[in-house]
């Protein structure tokens, strides 16, 4: 998704003149959003797949295939509904598949085919 320079200028002017009250925000940009939901501060034991997911991101970074900022970008572009429902490491998995497919490391649908086969 791209927006033109003129559009960005207009957005900035609208903000400064108070015509809109804040910058549009991504689904991940939650700071200060009111909620009635209690925050779960509980710890939970990581499942094996979560530990492996963490290790995989580290391995991809060491091989130069993907960095942590790409990981974040992949998470931030998740469809809102999926983002809200996904757990922390499910978001990592989504991003890894998405970014590696974008970079041609994985073919589209390759993981699904392997998992099914």
């Amino acid at each position, binding site marked *: *998704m*791209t*927006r033109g320079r003129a559009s*960005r200028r207009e*957005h*900035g002017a609208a*903000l*400064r003149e108070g015509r809109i009250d*804040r*910058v*549009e*925000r991504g689904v991940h*940009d939650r*700071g*200060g959003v009111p909620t009635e939901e209690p925050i779960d501060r509980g710890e939970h034991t990581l499942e094996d797949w979560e530990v492996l997911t963490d290790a995989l991101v580290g391995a991809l970074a060491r091989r130069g295939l993907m*960095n942590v*900022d*790409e990981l*974040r*970008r992949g998470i*931030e572009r998740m469809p809102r509904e999926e983002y809200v429902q996904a757990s922390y490491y499910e978001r990592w998995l989504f991003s890894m598949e998405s970014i590696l497919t974008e*970079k041609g490391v994985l073919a589209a649908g390759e993981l699904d085919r392997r998992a099914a086969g």
Partner: protein
Amino acid sequence: MTYLVGEPVVVAARAHIGHHRTPSYIKGKRGRIERVHARFRNPETRAYGGAGLPEVPLYLVSFARSDLWPDPCAGGGHRVYVDVFEHWLEEAK
């Protein structure tokens, strides 16, 4: 480094389509430089496979909590601390 510890700054109130590390709740807000961390690779280009060069100075900036959202302890002097890259900061008039 453009800004000094103690200097007032304003966070740019601009939209940015794409990955960036400046949360919405500080955009357009006035803050104060608390610490000059160092220069780091720019996550905004690294997120698209770039090298993130040139490195960008990163600052610890503090904000009055009551400037960011309704503060149940207004007047308590509470501050919120956020790391902000230099290209998101402007001189406070």
